[in-house]
């Protein structure tokens, strides 16, 4: 099952040497990758590789690709230019006054980079072939997670407690408060009663004496007096009765109005 993983490092599959011209440059991860692939085809250890031969192969490859009018990414061309320079440094003997790095040093640097890239690929492969968690090695399948019990500590002060109680009791008083249902004589009632009591009596009679039966209950006395008095004024206005009061706060006398003293 690991074959799929290890195979990635061998991609692209190395074609036969003759087919090299048909290799698509797009299959490589950059010029260094291409160089490494070309180097591998020399089938020798990277340490023993001929950098000069490698540089020539690379340049040839790029030339062939460009002949086919395949666009080549810029970094491949940069590498080609650098390799052409390297080639010239390797082929031309170095002048003593030359400050530039020697061809040998440049070649060693390239060789180092190739070895380093290959080394990283090798260890990546080794890494992926290790017993990996979830693939070959497993963690506990039924973990028992730590449960966090939230315990609430309630906070309340005595003041809050007393306030809550007082507010409710006050509220309770208000809702419990039923205004005393007083019997109220409506003006109409008072008027009907007064009319009936006075009847056809033309004598002056104190109003209270007509109402004596009703005034026994002290709670109703006020409403009866008020309503009767108000109604009596109305009856006077209509010319039905007469009212007389001889002194301030004195008793009120009523009698039937003689409508036509003829």
């Amino acid at each position: 099952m690991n074959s799929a993983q290890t195979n990635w490092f061998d991609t692209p599959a190395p074609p036969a040497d003759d087919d090299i011209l048909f290799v698509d440059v797009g299959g490589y991860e950059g010029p260094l990758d291409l160089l490494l692939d070309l180097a591998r085809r020399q089938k020798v250890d990277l340490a023993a590789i001929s950098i000069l031969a490698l540089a020539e192969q690379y340049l040839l490859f790029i030339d062939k690709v460009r002949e086919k009018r395949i666009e080549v990414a810029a970094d491949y061309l940069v590498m080609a230019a650098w390799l052409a320079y390297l080639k010239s440094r390797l082929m031309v003997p170095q002048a003593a006054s030359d400050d530039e790095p020697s061809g040998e040093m440049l070649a060693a640097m390239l060789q180092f980079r190739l070895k380093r890239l290959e080394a990283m690929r090798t260890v990546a492969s080794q890494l992926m072939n290790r017993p990996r968690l979830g693939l070959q090695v497993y963690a506990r399948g039924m973990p028992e997670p730590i449960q966090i019990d939230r315990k609430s500590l309630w906070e309340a002060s005595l003041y809050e407690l007393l306030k809550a109680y007082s507010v409710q009791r006050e509220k309770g008083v208000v809702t419990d408060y039923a205004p005393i249902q007083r019997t109220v004589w409506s003006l109409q009632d008072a008027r009907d009663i007064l009319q009936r009591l006075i009847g056809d009596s033309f004598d002056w009679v104190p109003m209270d004496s007509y109402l004596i039966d009703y005034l026994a209950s002290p709670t109703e006395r006020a409403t009866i007096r008020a309503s009767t008095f108000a109604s009596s004024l109305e009856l006077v206005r209509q010319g039905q009765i007469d009212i007389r009061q001889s002194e301030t706060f004195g008793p009120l006398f009523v009698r039937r109005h003689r409508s036509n003293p003829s």
Partner: protein
Amino acid sequence: MNELAADSLQLDERHLRVLEAVLFASTEPLDVHSLLTYVGEGADIASLLVTLQQRYAGRGVNLVQRGDKWAFRTAEDLGFLLRREDEETRPLSRAALETLSIIAYHQPATRADIEAVRGVATGGGTIDLLMEAGWIRMRGRRRTPGRPVTYGTTDAFLDHFGLESLGDLPGLEELKGAGLLSNRLPPSMQIPLPFDGALRDDEDPLDPDDQDGEDESA
């Protein structure tokens, strides 16, 4: 003969390792049948499991059988390791505060008593919360139809509110004096004296199975 026994022992050890790993990694308890697929048909799975169970007996993790399935579980006595209590302080809700204060003054108080003062029904959650807080307790049952549970406050209540006894709860005049109650209340209004004796004349002791929960009928 000896060699044969040694071989068999080695095979058993191998089987035990496999079972250990499979049971550890499995996302669910495994039955004997599926365990067999890992060790091969020939193995005496029952005795292997018993051996494994014995090896883990007394350890921090035990091999337990649930129905016909097997799984590793944290030893029961270490369950507390996997629980952590996080304490957070929260203010008491108004409903709870009101209910508590009514129970404090009117105890022993039934749910109906509380509702008579509050004017609204008190959810079971509020009572539960106060019980959980340790401030109220079930005292008994009132000797009236339905035998409703009576509630009273606890020592923890006194402790929390800094009261030496229920008698320390301020009375009517003190509440008025503190401005908590207005002075224009009808003279008929009374504040009860909280009762903290054992049981009142109209109270029965709690039924044996009352401790688990409150009455739902009330």
